[in-house]
């Protein structure tokens, strides 16, 4: 009887575990099945490197969106990574206990704010600010990057913090015993030693930035042209799907699924890099 109980529990857990993987597999298969016909019709090279996106004319080139995604993400990382690293180091090494007990929950709150709220805030404050003080229409790569930088901060900070905390105390003790200053210990010992965890933090932040849709739709301007400066409007892979989904039909809709395939592949690559980086010591 006990044996039966044990076996049935085991089976139930196995079933539940498999069902989550099965839903992932179903989604992937569905996206691929919907998207592949358009890619094979247009040709993979024309699809990935075509600069013209005009579904009503049967033109499906997503290079502007790929460039858009990459540039928005890179500018966001340029803003977020130094900030987040400094914050993580501060929390682990320098912060008085009471300050950390305020800063850490505040960062958690940052992670909990819905993306549409970030987007709305950007639309009301950042877009007019850029339009009035830096020029251009305001809807721009810079506006999207600022929003994404704030949104990726919690991810990067908490993982980098864990990586720094996981270092054996003997490293720091040994370094200080050799007569280095605290600054030298942080820069030349602790950051290099936590390198793999910090890399994983950055890559996961990057994945968060590339996948974000709602917030960037509202501030990016969504133009389908190759941007020339960070003050130009741009469109990312996710916003291409998000903005055209409502009215797309037939081949146009399949092309949006094909955009999803490209996105899926990019995110899978980023996740494997993050896992590889985290495992390496």
């Amino acid at each position, binding site marked *: 009887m006990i044996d039966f109980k044990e076996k049935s529990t085991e089976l139930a857990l196995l079933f539940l575990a498999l069902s989550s993987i099965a839903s992932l597999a179903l989604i992937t298969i569905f996206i691929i099945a919907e998207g592949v016909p358009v890619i094979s019709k247009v040709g993979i090279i024309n699809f990935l490197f075509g600069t013209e996106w005009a579904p009503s004319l049967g033109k499906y080139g997503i290079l502007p969106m790929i460039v858009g995604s990459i540039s928005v993400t890179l500018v966001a990382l340029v803003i977020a990574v130094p900030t987040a690293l400094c914050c993580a180091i501060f929390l682990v090494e320098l912060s008085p206990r009471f300050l950390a007990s305020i800063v850490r929950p505040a960062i958690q709150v940052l992670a909990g704010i819905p993306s549409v709220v970030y987007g709305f805030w950007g639309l009301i404050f950042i877009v007019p600010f850029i339009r009035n003080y830096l020029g251009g229409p305001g809807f721009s790569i810079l506006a999207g990057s600022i929003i994404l930088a704030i949104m990726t901060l919690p991810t990067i900070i908490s993982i980098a913090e864990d990586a720094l905390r996981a270092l054996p105390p003997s490293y720091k003790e040994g370094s200080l015993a050799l007569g280095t200053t605290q600054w030298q210990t942080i820069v030349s010992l602790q950051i290099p030693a936590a390198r793999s965890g910090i890399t994983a933090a950055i890559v996961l932040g990057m994945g968060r930035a590339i996948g974000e849709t709602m917030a960037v739709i509202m501030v990016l301007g969504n133009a*389908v042209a190759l941007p020339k400066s960070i003050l130009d409007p741009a469109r990312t892979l996710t916003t291409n799907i998000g903005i055209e989904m409502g009215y797309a039909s037939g081949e146009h809709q399949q092309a949006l699924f094909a955009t999803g395939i490209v996105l899926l592949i990019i995110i899978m690559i980023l996740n494997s890099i993050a896992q590889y980086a985290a495992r390496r010591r």
Partner: protein
Amino acid sequence: MQLNKVDVVNVQGGGSSAGIKSVETGTANIGMSSRELTPDEQGLTVIPIAIDGIALILHPSNPLQNLSLAQIRDIYTGKIKNWDSVGGPNWQIHLVTREEGSGTRSAFSDLVMSGSQIYPGAIVQDSNGAVRQVIAGDKAAIGYISLGLVDNEVKALNIDGITPSKDTILNHDYKFWRRFLFLVKGQETPPEKQFIDFVLSSDGQALLSREGLVPISAVSGGTSSP
């Protein structure tokens, strides 16, 4: 609601394609669309219910009142880049358009652009309200929305000297409009027919008119696609 207290009509948003698809798949009894059906969407019964003007809108502080159709086309193809080329102030033009597949965009392309492509660097917003909000906040922007949604935050532009309004649409002076459609699959069921008849009745059309639309019954030739 005061007239028909018993029946419940559930309304769901999502855009024209969602409206067309949901009636095709049988999810909805009646689909609504602001664009005409594409060749591969045939097989549905199309019931036009109203006509909606499309207005070009500017920020109220832009001194321009009128543009010719050719000037608008040159602005939207990206040929004209500054308001001073059309007699306005020396501001860089910020173009705002709708996303591919939008009913408003396809009507704008057919009526105004007549085959020319909209400048790809234009800002794309995914609803009439979003376009209006951008124009209301940016003195150098131009966009197009449903005439019924023009409010005092933005200014509707005269085209070739003609003010967009219900009257100018009715007397065929203002040419920029599209149809709003109801779609049904096959034969209408009695409740569907009851609802459609209500919308097409004088009470229903009066309600649409109050929302800024032109009743379909008032327009000669309105029942054929533009």
